[in-house]
């Protein structure tokens, strides 16, 4: 940090501060930017050991390859199915469990709250073998619906914790009158709680969407046929087994990154709020 004692050199202090920030931005994003820029090169430009940094001339060859030869649209579509379906599952199941545990009295309320919250502390990645066999025995292995259900389950605890905290922060009086009037449980949930729960739902929605879009491990474990691959598995294929197609690889990586980056930029406020409230516990 720059000391304010150097008031004689305020310009120097500012310069050093921005210099440090720029160096870190470059370190954090340099390799990524290099890939994005290189995705507009052709094969020989990419492989030239001393070629220029900027594409010269620029080409969309990689983007053509990635759809025509690798059929990236298929994997992008799969990723959309998994992300949208899994996110909806986690959102709905999370809201349904969060509402009563946050706002109503019933037997074993604390037990449910503790078990659902503690599930968040289980490194699910350590449960590879049984997850595989359970999915196989349920007939869900290597199916799209199976992955949607699995992702819904995987992100249910996060969804529950965020939504429960949000619902608990609303004033109690909200549904009191409706309860006194004898309104049914799902009437109250649908008419009164859901409209108010929107910020919590959006936070969970954008976070879980990004997490599922980026998920690799369980996609790798639970899909076998290439038709069910998500975009992340397709990217991994570029590093190892797809026929050498460097232009396609860089274009594919650029396209795969665009979706979560766009989601983040559009809903930045919710992403930041969700991550800071969801993790500083």
């Amino acid at each position, binding site marked *: 940090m720059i000391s304010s004692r150097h008031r004689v050199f305020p310009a120097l202090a500012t310069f050093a501060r921005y210099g440090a920030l720029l160096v870190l931005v470059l370190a954090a*994003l340099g390799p990524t930017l290099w890939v994005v820029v290189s995705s507009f090169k052709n094969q020989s430009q990419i492989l030239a050991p001393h070629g220029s940094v900027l594409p010269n001339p620029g080409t969309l060859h990689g983007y053509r390859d990635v759809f025509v030869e690798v059929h990236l649209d298929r994997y992008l579509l799969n990723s959309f199915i998994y992300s949208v379906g899994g996110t909806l599952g986690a959102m709905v199941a999370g809201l349904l469990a969060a509402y009563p545990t946050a706002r109503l009295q019933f037997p074993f309320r604390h037990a449910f709250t503790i078990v659902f919250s503690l599930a968040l502390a289980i490194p699910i990645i350590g*449960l590879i073998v049984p997850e595989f066999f359970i999915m196989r025995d349920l007939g869900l292995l290597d199916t799209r619906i199976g992955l949607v259900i699995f992702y819904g389950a995987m992100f249910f605890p996060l969804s529950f914790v965020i939504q429960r905290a949000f619902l608990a922060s609303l004033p109690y009086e909200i549904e009191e009158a409706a309860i006194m009037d004898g309104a049914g449980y799902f009437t109250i949930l649908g008419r009164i709680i859901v409209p108010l729960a929107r910020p919590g739902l959006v936070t969970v929605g954008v976070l879980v969407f990004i997490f599922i879009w980026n998920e690799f491990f369980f996609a790798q474990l639970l899909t076998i046929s290439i038709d069910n691959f998500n975009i992340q598995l397709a990217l991994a294929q570029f590093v190892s087994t797809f026929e050498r197609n460097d232009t396609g690889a860089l274009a594919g990586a650029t396209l795969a990154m665009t979706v979560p980056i766009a989601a983040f930029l559009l809903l930045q406020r919710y992403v930041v709020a969700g991550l800071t409230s969801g993790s500083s516990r």
Partner: protein
Amino acid sequence: MIVTTGAPRRRPSTTTRRRRVSGGVPRGMGWGIALSLLPGTALVATFFLIPLGVVVATSFSHWDVVGASYTGLTNYRDLLSDSVFWHAARNTLIYAAAGIFLQIPLAIFVALILSRRPFGWRLFRTILFVPVVISGAAYALIFANFYNASYGPLNRIVESIGLGGHDWLFEVNTALLAVAGTYVFNIGFFMILVMAEITALPVAVSEAAVVDGASSLQRDLYVTIPLLRHVIGTCVLLSLLSSLSFFDIVYILTSGGPADATVSLTVYAFREYASGRWGYANAIGTVIVLVGFVLIVTTRRAFRLGSRAT
């Protein structure tokens, strides 16, 4: 990469607010509540609790394609003398150390600068967060290119300042560093957490330090950073947990090689699973789950994270 933990921090005083329904389940709502808890209960039971039970139970067995037979502590005894396991454990610790001693301090440094709200701070915050939402697989592909021995930019930079290039990911001496290098500058997540905490600090403390004539450096070192104890604890915990689950980048870039130089616990567990030694894989899985739990408990205690929660 992103892990979240624990129970809500701010919890309203539930007992007083709910006194009016404290008599029991609101009339006619019992079935609604039960139905409402059903999906979550089914999902948690099927994909968390049962698998957890199976992992722990079968970690005491020899289990492969042929079948399972109880073997007591044999798997764990084997783990103790398994040099690859210890290598993976050591690497996992090194991955965590890179997070704790490089990534987190850099994040605090940037958060302290940006919290003074210099011109353009929002832009810097947004840009530095972008890498957080880029997937491990995309990162692996990016760095496979960045480290490429013949055309990768790293060798070009290194050679332009007169040093020798390396095949960074495939030489035993550089591979581990190269893998850690993929994320140490990915500081956005920790930066956001620290910035949120700085915003929540009482202004009076910092003002008192100014009145006492403290320079901004002194204020940061002796006033602000000690007050950030909780959030730094959270960052350390998250860093440990994410290296405990570290998989994508290692698996795609090196599969744990060369000569197990980069293998992590999860990559090793996956390798054992893939070669059909399921009982043994589950012993490693049990270790991962146990270490995860112990980490959460001890780190919360060390940084008194629990003191504000129930």
